[in-house]
């Protein structure tokens, strides 16, 4: 099972801090999972110009191919101007339609204010649905006050991470099995 963690911003530290917790949780609980964390801050990604994702070179080609080869994707995003950052939207724009068909996608959000709690519902989930993702419905919403110097100090968030990772792995496994059984039925 291949899972990609996608840290969707190139500025700030909170989303990356949250993704570090996530990485640790996955590698401890599920060492058999092939997990790769892609922090967009570490890559130089060009804007989508409409070509097929296979035709991008360098960092852009690397990141799009990693995502397309994953069985599950865990997206970490901050909220900028009451929406997802342009860097994350660009990743979606680089990929083909229906890219997330047969993939599980889960979400971690970091936000400056609780007033942003519906951004995921209203802006991120519709994109993921359009791209045919199987979305893990519960996400982890982390506020400013849950962080202290690049650490998470709210235990509830830690428990939520544990549940998110478990749900993602269980759902991915289940979905892979359902697909396998269904494909075998076709007899071709």
């Amino acid at each position, binding site marked *: 099972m291949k899972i990609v963690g996608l840290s969707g911003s190139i500025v700030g530290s909170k989303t990356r801090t949250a993704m570090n917790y996530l990485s640790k949780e996955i590698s401890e609980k599920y060492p058999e999972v092939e997990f790769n964390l892609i922090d967009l801050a570490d890559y130089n990604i060009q804007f989508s*110009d*409409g*070509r*097929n*994702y*296979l*035709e991008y070179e360098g960092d852009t080609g690397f990141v799009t191919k990693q995502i*397309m080869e994953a069985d599950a994707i865990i997206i970490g995003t901050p909220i900028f101007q009451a929406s997802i950052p342009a860097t994350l939207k660009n990743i979606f724009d680089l990929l*083909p339609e*229906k*890219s997330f*068909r047969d993939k599980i996608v889960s979400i971690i959000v970091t936000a400056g204010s609780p007033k942003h709690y519906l951004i995921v519902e209203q802006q991120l989930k519709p994109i993921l649905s359009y791209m045919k993702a199987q979305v893990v419905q519960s996400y982890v919403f982390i506020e400013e006050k849950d962080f202290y110097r690049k650490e998470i100090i709210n235990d509830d968030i830690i428990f939520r991470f544990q549940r998110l990772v478990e749900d993602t792995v269980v759902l991915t496994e289940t979905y892979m099995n359902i697909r396998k059984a*269904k*494909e075998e039925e*076709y*007899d*071709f």
Partner: protein
Amino acid sequence: MGMEKYRIDQSQGLEFGLYSLGDHLSNPHTGERISAQQRLKELVESAKLADQAGIDFFSVGESHQEYFTTQAHSVVLSAIAQATEKIKIGSSSTILSTSDPVRVFEDFATIDLISNGRAEIIAGRASRIGLFELLGYDVRDYEELFEEKFELLLQINENEVVNWSGDFRAPLRNAKVLPRPKEGSMPIWRAVGGTPTSAVKAGFQGVPMALAMLGGPVSHFKTSIDTYRQALTQVGYNPTDFPVATTGFFYTAETTQQALREYYPHINEGMKRTNGRGFAKQLFAQGADKRSVMLVGSPQEIIEKILYQHEQFGHQRYMAQLEFGGVPFDKIMKNIEIIGTEIIPAIRKYTAKK
């Protein structure tokens, strides 16, 4: 006027053609990939067999990227012109956006003379855009590059002396573009993808349309064809003067089940390599239904589906993509044999206009 200009004789019934993108992929059943040289030889050999089997048309497309081998598609077509006798030959498609229409015309007019009046051009805009960078074009001009060059190509085809100026090529002043095709001009088609928007463009330009159909319901593609004919009428053309060709995946074996089983891995792996996504089994399974455009099945099922599509589309040519994704040569030979002995006689019988 009728369709003579496009060398279509409807009294013979629906034309059957084969087309290749010139892909160079391994056979997923064995994991082996033949050499590029072998692949080219087999393409020419397939065209010869198709000619002998009474198939009407054979075409080769250009793609400039890994896993393809007919980048110089007009050169391949020239070899096919020499190796064959009666079959019409063409491109599927020529990416006009990144070529000079004068050179394209010179190449194809030459093939027309070598083949004794059998050459055609199907011009398209490219579904993969890597070639823009390779050949020094800006993909931001994707649309205009094609429209301008296509208009110029049509002018060259219609007029022996051309005066022209545009944005993407040096102007032509009393330019004679030679050689001329055997009959002075040759059929030039516009390649159209799935959306009715491009079908409208073909209609407004008054050119025949070759419609790509990878998968989906017949009714979906009927909309594009209806739209095309409406567009022709709207600008004063008569749709009965313009042929329509459709293209799609094709594979036949003794039973439909066997055809699906043999062909699916080629489509799935081939699409993965060239488009980055496999072909979902669910969609492929639906392809066996009569209402789907895909022609994968027993000869009898394929005959019934072609006739159903002909009833819906009223098209003049069907072009089969039989050898995508490393289909081995013995299967290609077998398919061509069945097309020639079983499928073509049946569809001609029912579609010939008396």
